[in-house]
């Protein structure tokens, strides 16, 4: 009955605070952390000693799982996904996982098909197509 | 202190979860004793009407074998519904408790013979822990639903592991700590035993049977169960949310409670008789005597709706709501109070006597204040007579209040018992002499007054036993 117990990303129940917050796709995090790491490297003699384990693991992770390398591509992805009035969280899950079929997209982000939002399968189809195109021309 | 909603919560809990509780002694394998299901409900109900109570007293009142009761209470202690306390005490120690219980106005001061014993004896006491009950029940409901929902949602239950050696349990959340360098298994942190995955019965059923039909049936069953929880436990859920923001009744430890009540008792003892009775005669009537056991008089309105639902299966819930007993009910009610009379305390007797005359009491101020106007307004002859009798009776009541009046008052009450039809209330006083003889039982009880013989007690209990509800009725009326 605690707040944590009620959390359910499948229904977009992630708490008011996180619902309003900006989410970052892995590729976006990679850019932020890269930038930060450069600064550390410039200012510190021993950069590896100056970053936390959390930082290091996160950086490895987002580099490994970045779908888009090019900053422009990342912006385009955001732009496309925001046309469908997705929540930040949903947008980033789709951006991270790049589902290929409508069925897969819905399995990854079940909240996308919630009743109050009239997102049809056709719309999802178009969206996935657009995302695939960005990747293709990156 | 918001006792009433919490009490109701306990009653609902009793019926929801302990209705079919079957407790057998470990060595009592033969079922000769028979089925004691339902006893748990009776015990919990009885506890809602008490604060701390000596367990042997409770056993006597409930006509249960003390071992049986203890077993039930031990179970409730494990379930975290009940606090218990045990201590060795002599007659003196018992006195503190008796004093406390007297101060608390229990009206069921049964164990007088306890004082005669000089030997040290271990006595156990018990009391409902309301705030804990609230938490425990909420947690229970939560777990019930969660278990079903988890399985229904995605069949993704958190795996649990058990150590076969020391029976320590772990969950998949502990996995990191359980990894062993030696092999591929998880190992117990305590004894290094190799853990075994506890295949949840529900999950195992499913895993073993990949058949789609079985899976579907299973899902339907789960759904059904969840729905049943929602429907059948709704009254309980409602009550939980009702109680949510109310402070839970706290009685403290046995010692604290005794100390507090003894103090209160001393403070009010001096004038309690006069004070209380004057209060009641002012027409505050019903709950005039403050009884910590019962809380203040509260009229429960919102609850009645829920109550109805519950009633069809549980007739014993029928008496739970606290209402002013209407005149046409008095017949039955009085009978019960009458039974109780023998063991009831002095103040509560007063209460009942006033209760009896209540319908008249209500009118009294008018009659007194502008007697003439009213008399003019109604059929003169009848009401003059009526008023006369009222005054007469009032006089009698006052008399009783002023002096101790043990002899007078109960006889009036006994009249009340026999003079069941409401019409006859009016004639009570005059009837008394005639009916007095019929009430042999009462006459017997009178001399013993507040100290009640055990034989008497038995009689009462035999009658009370007819239905557990009678108990309820008595208490409600006193409160």
């Amino acid at each position, binding site marked *: 009955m605690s707040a944590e117990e009620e959390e359910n990303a499948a229904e977009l129940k992630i708490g008011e605070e996180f619902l309003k917050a900006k989410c*970052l796709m892995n590729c976006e995090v990679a850019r932020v952390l890269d930038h930060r790491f450069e600064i550390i490297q410039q200012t510190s003699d021993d950069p590896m000693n100056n970053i936390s384990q*959390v930082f290091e693991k996160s950086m490895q992770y987002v580099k490994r799982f970045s779908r888009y390398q090019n900053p422009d591509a990342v912006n385009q992805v955001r732009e496309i996904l925001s046309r469908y009035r997705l929540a930040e*969280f949903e947008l980033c899950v789709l951006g991270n996982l790049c589902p290929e079929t409508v069925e897969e997209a819905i399995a990854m982000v079940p909240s996308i098909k919630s009743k109050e939002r009239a997102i049809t399968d056709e719309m999802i189809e178009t969206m996935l197509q657009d995302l695939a195109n960005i990747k293709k021309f990156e | 202190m918001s006792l009433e909603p919490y009490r109701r919560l306990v009653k609902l809990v009793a019926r929801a979860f302990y209705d079919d509780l079957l407790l057998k002694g470990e060595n009592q394998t033969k079922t000769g004793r028979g089925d004691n299901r339902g006893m748990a409900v009776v015990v919990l109900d009885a506890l809602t009407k008490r604060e701390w109570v000596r367990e042997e007293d409770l056993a006597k009142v409930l006509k249960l074998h003390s071992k049986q009761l203890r077993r039930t209470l031990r179970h409730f202690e494990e379930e975290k519904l009940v606090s218990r306390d045990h201590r060795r005490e002599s007659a003196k120690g018992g006195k503190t408790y008796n004093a406390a219980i007297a101060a608390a106005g229990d009206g069921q001061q049964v164990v007088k013979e306890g004082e005669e014993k000089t030997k040290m004896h271990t006595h156990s006491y018990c009391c409902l822990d309301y705030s804990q009950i609230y938490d425990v029940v909420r947690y229970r409901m939560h777990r019930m639903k969660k278990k079903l929902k988890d399985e229904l949602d995605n069949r*993704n239950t958190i795996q649990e592991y058990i150590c076969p050696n020391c029976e320590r349990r772990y969950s998949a959340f502990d996995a990191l700590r359980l990894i062993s360098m030696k092999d591929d298994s998880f190992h117990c942190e305590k004894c290094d035993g190799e853990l075994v995955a506890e295949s949840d019965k529900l999950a195992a059923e499913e895993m073993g049977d990949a058949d789609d039909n079985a899976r579907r049936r299973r899902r339907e069953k789960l759904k059904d169960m969840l729905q049943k929880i929602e429907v059948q436990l709704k009254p309980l859920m409602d009550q939980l949310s009702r109680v949510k923001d109310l402070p839970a009744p706290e009685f403290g430890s046995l010692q604290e409670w005794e100390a507090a009540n003894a103090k209160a008792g001393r403070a009010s003892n001096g004038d309690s008789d006069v004070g209380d009775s004057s209060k009641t005669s002012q027409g505050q009537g019903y709950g005039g005597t403050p009884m910590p056991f019962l809380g203040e008089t509260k009229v429960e309105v919102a609850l009645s709706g829920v109550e109805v639902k519950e009633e069809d299966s549980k007739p014993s819930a029928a008496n739970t709501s606290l209402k002013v007993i209407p005149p046409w009910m008095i017949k039955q009610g009085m009978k019960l109070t009458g039974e109780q009379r023998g063991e009831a305390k002095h103040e509560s007797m007063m209460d009942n006597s006033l209760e009896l005359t209540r319908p008249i009491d209500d009118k009294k101020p008018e009659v007194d204040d502008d007697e003439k106007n009213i008399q003019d307004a109604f059929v003169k002859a009848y009401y003059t007579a009526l008023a006369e009798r009222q005054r007469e009776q009032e006089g009698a009541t006052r008399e009783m209040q002023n002096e101790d009046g043990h002899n007078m008052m109960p006889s009036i009450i006994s009249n009340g018992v026999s003079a069941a039809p409401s019409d006859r209330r009016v004639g009570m006083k005059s009837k008394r002499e005639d009916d007095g003889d019929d009430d042999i039982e009462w006459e017997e009880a009178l001399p013993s007054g507040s100290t009640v013989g055990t034989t008497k007690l038995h009689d009462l209990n035999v009658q009370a036993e007819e239905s557990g509800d009678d108990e309820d009725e008595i208490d409600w009326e006193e409160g």
Partner: protein
Amino acid sequence: MFFHIELERNIQLHPRHFGPRLKEKLKQKLMRDVEGTCSGRHGFVVAITHFDDFGKGLIREGTGFVTFPVRYRCVIFRPFKNEVLEAVVTLVNKMGFFAEAGPVQIFVSNHLIPDDMEFQPGDMPNYTTSDKSVKIQKDSEVRLKIIGTRVDATEIFCIGTIKDDFLGVINDPGAAS
């Protein structure tokens, strides 16, 4: 999921740091205090990105320390129940496998691995389908769904499943590089 959020924190500073480089000191102290920590509410703090506001300092009576409220933005990582994400397998045993998604560790117990995958012990323990087409071993990348999280003082630990549609291995390490 990674988030970019604004948080506030009170930073205590010793008077010896008061001077022209006060702000620098505050930043350093904040980064040291916050980065790499984990809380149940906000998850792991990965990196501070901006310092938005330094409030007025308040002298702590008796010590001379001064407390400054600082508002800052940071990247955090916070897993949610039923979130689907990708992770790298770190350890495989017969009880299941462990994986990492950034700073968070995830355990997938064997009953949440599809029934057709069987544990194969050996130097490189793994879970393999009977036709050997799919294999999960150390360093495999898997897509999993979080079904439970447990928070303690310094860690968030997750339980995951790959026993659902579109979950499981996304590439096998042999073919990856």
